[in-house]
């Protein structure tokens, strides 16, 4: 049975533009934008960020489904958790499609990258959940917490509540990942080390060269929203409180802030 299927085997509508990450970065760079994701101070920030998240929810749904399918000999409770996650991610994708419409966009307005799928490229279920549930869903905690704060400043309860609802699920996904990373590697420290190393590679991938910081330390920039002027973060922040709720340790969060992706078991 083939595991770790390549990204271009994922089914997408023909009218979608699918691009490797380097082409996305190139297109942004040529326009004088930061090469990675849309930053909070850009005109298109809300649309672009929600689009990226929506695509991420689809890929996370596919990833959890793939994990369920790839490891038929894993404990039944593990499979049940993966099945639940598929259902969660499908609701999230639906919520973000509605939010896209709410901010005057639609799924497919922007190209979809493939980088999130790289989080699935592990042969071992322990590494798979370490990468997806702890690495990727940990990043989701950061991104969602920032969106919630921006929505609060905008006075937009629709975005605030919708994203908060999704964040609650992501926190349970991180916890699920921690639980299974630990249980599946019990008595096998080498396997645990490999799973952690895989998560480290995901954390490094999304740490943007150490360019992320805490909510408190983030720079701010003024932006007009209709009649209001609000101050928003000028970079992607790390959500300490949400990550603590998800079960990350203070040490792990500090390492992320310092630009190291090294995780420890707990």
């Amino acid at each position, binding site marked *: 049975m083939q595991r770790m299927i390549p*990204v*271009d*085997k*994922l089914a*997408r509508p*023909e*009218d*979608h*533009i*699918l*691009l*490797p990450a380097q*082409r*996305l970065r*190139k*297109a*942004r760079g*040529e*326009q004088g*934008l930061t090469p990675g994701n849309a930053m909070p101070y*850009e*005109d*298109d920030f*809300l*649309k672009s960020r929600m689009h990226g998240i929506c695509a991420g929810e689809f890929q996370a749904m596919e990833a959890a489904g793939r994990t369920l399918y790839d490891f038929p000999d894993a404990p039944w409770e593990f499979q049940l958790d993966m099945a639940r996650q598929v259902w969660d991610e499908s609701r999230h994708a639906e919520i973000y*499609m*509605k939010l896209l*419409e*709410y*901010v*005057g*966009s*639609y799924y*497919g*307005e*922007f*190209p*979809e990258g*493939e980088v999130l799928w790289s989080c699935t490229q592990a042969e071992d279920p322990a590494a798979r959940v370490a990468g997806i549930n702890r690495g990727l869903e940990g990043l989701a905690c950061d991104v969602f917490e920032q969106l919630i704060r921006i929505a609060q400043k*905008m*006075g*937009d*309860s*629709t975005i605030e*509540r*919708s994203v908060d609802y999704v964040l609650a699920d992501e926190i349970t996904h991180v916890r699920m990942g921690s639980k299974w990373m630990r249980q599946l590697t019990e008595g096998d420290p080498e396997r645990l080390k490999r799973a952690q190393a895989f998560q480290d590679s995901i954390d490094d991938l999304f740490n943007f060269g150490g360019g992320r910081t805490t909510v408190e330390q983030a720079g701010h920039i003024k932006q007009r*929203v*209709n*009649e*209001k002027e609000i101050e928003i973060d000028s970079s992607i922040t790390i959500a300490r409180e949400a990550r603590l709720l998800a079960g990350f340790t203070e040490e792990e969060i500090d390492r992320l802030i310092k630009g190291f992706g090294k995780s420890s078991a707990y």
Partner: protein
Amino acid sequence: MKMPDLGERGNVTGPQPIAQIVEPPAAMLAAARSLLNALMRGDRAGVEAMTAEQAREDMDRIASEIKPGRYDKFELIGRGRISRHYFLKARLTGTDAPRFTIQFRLGEDDGKWTVREALNLTGRRSGWTK
């Protein structure tokens, strides 16, 4: 798809949806049509004139794979933007000709839209294929 009711809107700022859909610029779509017509005609000079230096090699390769007059119709099947640049996916068709799919990015400088990168997607599963 119609926007569903998302609940309490009392303290939401401004009209809803809170921003408008960005329509693709007419000049960009016109440039795409000109480019595709030039490709189908085999007008290499026309294609080159619409291609930025950085994409010339790729575009030249694509143009050389399209036999002049073999295709007589095109369809823009996909569009996605990154800020002010547009990626377009187009399919060329012709009688007895295998379908030809191309994806390219258009950007504008001083009112002129030019190709910044191009990919031949014919026979590939998706643009994700590296």
